[in-house]
């Protein structure tokens, strides 16, 4: 099977990304319950009420070969969040990294930094991407700050791009990293990861 169709297992020192399965349902709800992530008005993290619909959308998109969804496990093998490649476009060698959320207990811990390092390495070095995009809600300032810390550049703000479940019309901020920028972003992520390790040592 093509690399563009097969969800890989990506292992680092602190986290492992592996294909999400329906058996992860309860563990995922436990993770998002830590911080009640779904209560943020701009968040798309699933809660107990929306998890089944979330899985249905996720697997439908995956069958159409447009996305690969991962469970994020910590060192102890506990599911602490989820992330994915989406809007995958093999002929244009482009993916988006998104649909990411983490239990409150692992936010700001370096888990996301290593997950991004693993996902970007696979995108640029195995899939041969020339562009990796990130998109977020105009009001999700924490996510924007996190994306900017990676070293991604802002492409623009797509106005009125989406209608959210509560009826709000959302502006979407688009960021990208291009293949020639990858070596710099990789060094930046490795440095950030080193700092997290010093702190927790």
């Amino acid at each position, binding site marked *: 099977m093509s690399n563009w169709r097969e969800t890989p297992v990506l292992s680092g020192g602190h986290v492992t990304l592996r294909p999400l399965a329906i058996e992860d349902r309860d563990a995922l709800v436990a993770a998002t319950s830590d911080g009640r992530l779904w209560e943020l008005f701009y968040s798309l993290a699933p809660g107990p009420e929306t998890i089944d619909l979330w899985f249905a959308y996720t697997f439908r998109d995956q069958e159409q070969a447009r996305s690969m969804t991962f469970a994020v496990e910590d060192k102890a093998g506990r599911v602490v969040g989820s992330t994915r490649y989406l809007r995958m476009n093999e002929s244009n*060698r482009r993916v988006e990294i998104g649909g990411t959320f983490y239990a409150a207990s692992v936010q700001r811990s370096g888990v996301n930094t290593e997950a991004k390092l693993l996902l970007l390495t696979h995108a640029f070095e195995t899939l041969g991407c*020339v562009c990796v995009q990130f998109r977020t809600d105009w009001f999700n300032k924490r996510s924007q700050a996190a994306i900017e810390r990676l070293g991604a550049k802002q492409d623009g703000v797509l106005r009125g791009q989406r209608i959210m479940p509560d009826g709000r019309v959302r502006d979407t901020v688009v960021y990208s990293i291009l293949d020639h920028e990858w070596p710099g972003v990789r060094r930046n992520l490795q440095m950030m990861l080193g700092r997290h390790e010093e702190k927790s040592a």
Partner: protein
Amino acid sequence: MSVWRETPTLAGRHVTLRPLAMEDRGALLEAMADGDLASLFYTFVPSPETVDAWFDKVFAERDAGRVLPFAVIAADGRLSGTTRFMRMSEADKRLEIGGTLYAKSVQRTGLNTEAKRLLLGHAFDGLGCRCVQIRTGWHNRASRAAIERLGAKLDGVLRNHKIMPDGHFRDTVVYSIITDEWPGVRANLDLLMARHEEKSA
């Protein structure tokens, strides 16, 4: 059938847009031969070699509910180009106007101005869109100037967004018009059309 799935016939004073059909193949190739459009490196124009694949792709997207393709008929009854609604999302009340190509003989005549007036009218007033996007390649200066003349605003530049047939990486410039801006854009288009009519009177 939902209005989001049905290609309408939109008739103006100088131009009529009607559903594109397989029978338009010959007339479309003839229109595309006027002006040697195929030599433009930054845009994709169907040629005798590629026209069948082009039709297949357009109709497949239409059948998937993402595209409504139009033939553009000039006042003399000749097929003078093509345009389409694409990336249609009924849930987000959003679509893109694109895939627009005109024979050289009708460029700068006001025909495109009226075609846009009809398409935007249908999108906002017929379909109830919240957002209409228009995208073009970074190097397509004529197209960018035309989009800006409509009154659309620049959302951003999606870097390395597409790999073109000649292998170059295309940056995609994204513009949008949102609901609240439509009355202003409509007044602007009416003014531009009146000017064209004065000139040709």
